[in-house]
């Protein structure tokens, strides 16, 4: 394992700040998702890029169907939470100067996998969510929608970039380890 014994103070403070920010996101993200389904009218402003869901998701949808939709939605959210949790731990490693530790590299890989899986699962659960939210409308009014936008493509690219960076860092760690065995 190759670490920075005394991490630069800006790296330490920035990593701590990002870890704190990630912790806030970790708490807010699932709670916001739950709130959107339980109190749709009150949380309308939060549905930034889910306009079509906004029209479907309202207080008129019986709570039971909203809970079904929420259960599907949480499947996608769980991957985002996993990514944020891994990101938080990664920043804590960085704040301790453990930049090239095996755990830090594993966490980077986890983040990439979580982002990638999150996009796929979110896409997959969109159909059952829209079905659950319109089921009570009866025949002829129910709908199934699919959603895959430029944001999802960007997330997939991000996942790819993070994965490649984690491989590059693993290679850097190997080179650094080898260097320490030379005198």
């Amino acid at each position, binding site marked *: 394992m190759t670490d920075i014994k005394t991490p630069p103070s800006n790296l330490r403070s920035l990593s701590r700040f990002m870890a704190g920010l990630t912790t806030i996101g970790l708490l807010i993200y699932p709670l916001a998702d739950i709130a959107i389904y339980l109190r749709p009218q009150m949380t309308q402003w939060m549905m930034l890029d889910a306009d079509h869901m906004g029209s479907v998701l309202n207080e008129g949808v019986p709570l039971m169907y909203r809970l079904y939709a929420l259960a599907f939605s949480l499947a996608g959210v769980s991957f985002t939470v996993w990514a944020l949790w891994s990101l938080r731990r990664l920043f804590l490693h960085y704040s301790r100067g453990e930049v090239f530790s095996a755990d830090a590299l594993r966490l980077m890989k986890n983040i990439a996998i979580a982002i990638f899986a999150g996009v796929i699962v979110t896409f997959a659960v969109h159909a059952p969510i829209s079905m659950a939210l319109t089921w009570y409308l009866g025949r002829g009014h129910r709908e199934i929608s699919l959603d895959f936008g430029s944001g999802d493509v960007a997330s997939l690219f991000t996942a790819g970039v993070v994965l490649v960076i984690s491989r590059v860092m693993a290679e850097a760690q190997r080179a650094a380890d*080898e260097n320490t*065995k*030379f*005198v």
Partner: protein
Amino acid sequence: MAIIVNLDVMMARRKMRSKELAEAIDITEANLSLLKSGKVKGVRFSTLERICAVLECQPGELLEFRPDA
């Protein structure tokens, strides 16, 4: 290990202690000890050059190839 490091032999011939050599070639005593016992993966040319300069010897006198039995 097929490569044998004869640094301790050369140091004994020159009557030089580990501490003195480590200071002269600018590496730690711990690393010098690892080098003497052959527990390193490699030696940098720059280190080898400094050892040869201080001990007034050739690289061939420090390193020896002995095929594994």
